[in-house]
């Protein structure tokens, strides 16, 4: 038996374990609303699912392409308002509003990203913050269209072939599907040329240009893709909560999304899931100690930044490469060998 066969067997074994794990996770995810003690807990998970989508978007722009998109909150709002208006004014259901919101947010996101061709780093950060503020101000002040500070209420939850998805438990499956599709989509686009061009721009903007990467195109693309995620999340949010107002989509929400993405792990898609689940859930259950909770939240951010800048996913990596994990995990003997079509996109 040569090395090759050993490797294949090991790979197959790992593959089998992986499938089993995925299957188990799938069952848990599918059954969750049925076993959840009450609808409120499903509501929290639904909200977390919406945050996962936004965080995936931010991670693509910031973690992979290095573009400071600090307008994610307001872009999320663009999606939410598009869906809310189409639904309350024209009676269009979620299924059509979802793509419409993605297109609307994507377009606005492209505009927010235009300055990235001229300015970078903290200049880009303030420019996107500023443009995000402008979006928010429009939401507050264009009363005739957006309802002003009062927002829009009575957005209808969707039905599917006559079956109403009118509770958190039922809506859960819509969000689950969106998150799975969003995750797989992100993984796919980041795997090959697009992902490499993104990371090349993040690592070294000038060298990327020399390698023939059309930096302007990919920078704008990163903004558009992140905004499309925010747009989808907005439509889902509007139809779930049935009431939206501009204060939900302000700079603070951009910061919240930024924080969860960082806590999960910038540059790791799984990190986005971890961070976006952890933060809203923690926030929910620590509500009793309100302000001390927020102080702890600030301290936690600083600790993460100073000691584990890679977020939770870095902790996982550190654990995996530690000696303890070496004993628990059979390390892949083929590491060091080229795996065709596989890059380090998690």
């Amino acid at each position: 038996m040569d090395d090759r066969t050993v490797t294949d067997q090991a790979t197959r074994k790992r593959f089998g374990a992986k499938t089993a794990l995925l299957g188990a996770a799938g069952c848990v995810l599918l059954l969750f609303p049925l076993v959840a003690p009450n609808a409120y807990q499903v509501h929290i998970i639904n909200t977390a699912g919406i945050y996962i989508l936004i965080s995936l978007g931010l991670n693509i722009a910031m973690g992979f392409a290095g573009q400071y998109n600090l307008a994610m909150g307001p872009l999320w709002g663009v999606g939410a308002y598009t869906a809310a208006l189409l639904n309350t004014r024209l009676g269009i259901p979620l299924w059509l509003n979802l793509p419409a919101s993605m297109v609307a947010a994507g377009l606005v996101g492209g505009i927010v990203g235009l300055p990235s061709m001229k300015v970078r780093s903290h200049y880009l950060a303030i420019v996107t913050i500023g443009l995000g503020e402008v979006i928010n101000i429009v939401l507050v002040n264009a009363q005739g269209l957006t309802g002003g500070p009062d927002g829009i209420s009575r957005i209808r939850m969707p039905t599917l072939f006559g079956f109403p998805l009118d509770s958190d438990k039922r809506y859960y499956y819509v969000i689950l599907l969106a998150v799975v599709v969003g995750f797989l989509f992100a993984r796919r686009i980041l795997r090959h040329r697009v992902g490499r061009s993104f990371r090349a721009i993040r690592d070294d903007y000038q060298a990327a240009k020399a390698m023939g990467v059309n930096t302007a195109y990919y920078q704008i693309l990163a903004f558009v893709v992140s905004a499309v995620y925010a747009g989808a999340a907005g439509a889902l949010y509007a139809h779930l909560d049935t009431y939206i107002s501009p204060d939900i989509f302000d700079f603070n929400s951009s910061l919240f999304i930024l924080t969860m993405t960082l806590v999960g792990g910038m540059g790791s898609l799984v990190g986005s899931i971890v961070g976006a689940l952890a933060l809203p859930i923690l926030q929910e259950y620590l509500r009793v100690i309100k302000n001390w909770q927020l102080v702890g939240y600030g301290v936690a951010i600083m600790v993460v930044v100073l000691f584990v800048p890679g977020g939770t996913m870095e902790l996982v990596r550190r654990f995996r490469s530690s000696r303890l994990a070496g004993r628990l995990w059979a390390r892949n003997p083929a590491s060091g060998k080229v795996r065709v079509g596989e890059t380090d996109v998690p």
Partner: protein
Amino acid sequence: MFLEIESLTMQFGGIYALKEVSLAVEQGEIHGLIGPNGSGKTTTFNVVSGYYKPTSGSIRFEGAGITGLPAHKITAAGFARTFQNLRLFSSMTVLDNVLVGMGHHAKTGLWREILNPAAVRREESRFVGDAIHLLELFGIAGLADHPATGLSYGEQRRVEIARALATKPKILLLDEPAAGLNEVESDELRGTLKSIRDSGVTILLIEHDMKLVMGVCDVITVLDYGRKIAEGPCESVSGDPVVIEAYLGKEDEP
């Protein structure tokens, strides 16, 4: 003429980094660009490869004007370059670094990635094959999966040249490729440069290592204070009193 630079002038806030520099590179030659520090060599590279827009002057490549085009279009026209300080993509493996260079030949874009994943996968495996082949030529195929910045200095230099070649250039602009290399590596580099040229890629080379320059270059252009002061085959340039003065004059200063 293959690459024709005509009376190129580059001004930074009143200071001339280049003044009326004209330069012609023939296809298939290794053309050395030398001069004391600050003489405008790297600026020439930066203008030619699209990083700076020249104050005046023109650049023609294979008969077409390319003055002031953005860098990625210059690369598409058939240019590739390396940088004085190593500029590998630090979060990527050696293989990915090379694959970035192949990217602009790819059909893969966002839409194809979604709509035709099978074709993308085929293209990807072809690219990976090409990239591995390229790395083999540089004797670093075994390092393909290693993080690029974890390599030794000499290895990183090789990755950078391999990455530049991955764009399949017609002309390669090398900015001090021997800097930081030891004697042995420098000798290897000489062989590498010659085989790159023999494979049909023209080279424009900035280098301070005179032994290397004299050993590989067919023609040498000498810059001083942003002006061209000499040009010709190695022997004639190295004996040129103006060139000697430029270098010695420089050394006289503290």
